[in-house]
């Protein structure tokens, strides 16, 4: 066994520091930590929810990207994946769930129905034509339903957005328009 080399000279000390010290911005550090623990809400509405479940299950395993813990309550979640058709009867509930989530919060519209009404856009008298009419949406994932890979890609876009955020303009409450159902 060789003894660890004593750091005798200042040059050696500097070389050692290079391996142990990381200089970064606080914004970047916090962004990096936050982006890898985006907790979604268990919020299945229709067919897309099945693909969302598949994303969480064995083959696709959303856990690899830090979004495994699907929370059953909005108060513990950061991300609302609106998976499935939102109807007029359900819309006030979706809005209330969004309001119950703590800031900062993100919304991912999954599937054609939540993006624009999808196949129900013309004759669906009871279907909300796009969830962005009641809550602000960060990322749209089209498809009917989108594949799990597509949902993961949507999650990466959310992560990008989270990573770029600066603490100073964190106060998103005022920055976001308030859209009301009532």
């Amino acid at each position, binding site marked *: 066994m060789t003894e660890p080399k004593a750091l005798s000279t200042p040059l050696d000390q500097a070389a050692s520091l290079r391996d142990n010290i990381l200089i970064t911005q606080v914004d970047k550090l916090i962004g990096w930590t936050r982006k890898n623990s985006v907790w979604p809400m268990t919020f299945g509405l229709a067919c897309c929810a*099945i693909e969302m*479940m598949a994303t969480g299950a064995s083959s696709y395993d959303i856990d690899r990207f830090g979004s495994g813990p699907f929370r059953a309550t909005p108060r513990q979640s950061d991300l609302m994946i609106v998976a499935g058709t939102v109807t007029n009867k359900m819309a006030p509930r979706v809005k209330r769930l969004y309001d119950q989530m703590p800031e900062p919060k993100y919304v991912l519209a999954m599937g054609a129905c939540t993006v624009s009404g999808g196949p129900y856009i013309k004759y*669906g008298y*009871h*279907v909300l034509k796009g969830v962005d009419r009641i809550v602000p949406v960060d990322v749209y994932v089209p498809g009917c339903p989108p*594949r799990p890979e597509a949902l993961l890609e949507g999650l990466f876009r959310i992560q990008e957005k989270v990573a770029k955020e600066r603490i100073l303009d964190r106060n998103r409450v005022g920055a976001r328009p308030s859209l009301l159902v009532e």
Partner: protein
Amino acid sequence: MSSEAARTLTPVPAGLSRGRMLDQDGDLRTEEMLLNMGPQHPATHGVLRVVVRTDGEMVIDCEPHVGYLHRCFEKHCESVSILQSVLYTDRLDYLTAMGNNWGFSMAIEKLFPDLVIPERAQYIRIICQELNRIASHLLAIGTYGMDIGAITPFLYCFREREKILSIFEAICGQRLNYNYIRPGGVAYDVDDRMVQTIKDFCAYFRPKALEYDDLLSKNDIFIRRTAKVGVLRPETAIQYGCTGPVLRGSGLARDLRRDMPYGIYDRFDFDVVVGQGEAGALGDCYDRYIVRIREMEQSLRIVEQAAAKIPGGEYRSPKIKGKIRPPKGEAYTRIENSRGELGFYVVSDGKDIAYRVKCRAPSFHNISVIPEISRGSMVADLIAIIGSMDIVLGEVDR
């Protein structure tokens, strides 16, 4: 309030004045509470809302509220052409979209007086429907385990389910909403390599059923949570129009594939699985669960038989081309979907757009029996009961 009084839903007796601590039976008086379960709740399988009246931990009464996913299916069918309507049937029971396609196509085909569906199409339909039934039951079992606290079976079920979905993806390009079985046949042909893949899947899946028995069916905690809970008597089931595994779990061997064979189901050898009350009571949650487990095996038998002798030839009838214009008339057909009898009533006035389509959805009726069988049970048992019904809100609300 004693438990017997709660079962019969008697109103609180007038003699119980304010401030008395005990009721007339000498029990400590408790207050009733109205609980709102859903529409966003992790255990209601979608957007079901159940209003529960509880007394402590006991359910006195409950009422399901549906309609949070009402997507106007019937309006779409009378607004878009018949071929386009097949797309909307996918989104009824999105876990068994093949069955929905088939049910709707069968109603349209019945309107044509002498339409013969080619042999090959019949075989492909049966293979797809039964594989889809397996996939649907797998999801039902997985999520049921998750509802009452077992996470692992969910992961195993999805592993197998993904294999079936990749077969469907190769056949028709979609994982969930297939739009594959259409009036007159199927949309695309299946090649020989695909048939071999299906045979390989059968060989792979057969020993897996034993794994579920080890994971769930013989799990002591699982049995305690489901045995003698939510007992559904067969006459109640018929009164409420329950069908499928819910009815068969109560011990009645009613299966449309056997009773009024459609397609070519009469050529295959399979058993109708019924509940036997092996966990304690006939028609409890465990019986409904075990029927699904054993039905997967029967479906596998049908797939094996069909894949072994699938004939060549046409995969769709040359008679139906382009716009589908059925003759004037009305038809009502039903098929045995994975949740029960799926019926379609079609009224045609000779145009390519149907005049009226009514869908008889099995889950809509299975869900309506929940208040009847959950009175007097614990709140935690209500989760087990709703899970054992295996409802899909897409077809409840349509």
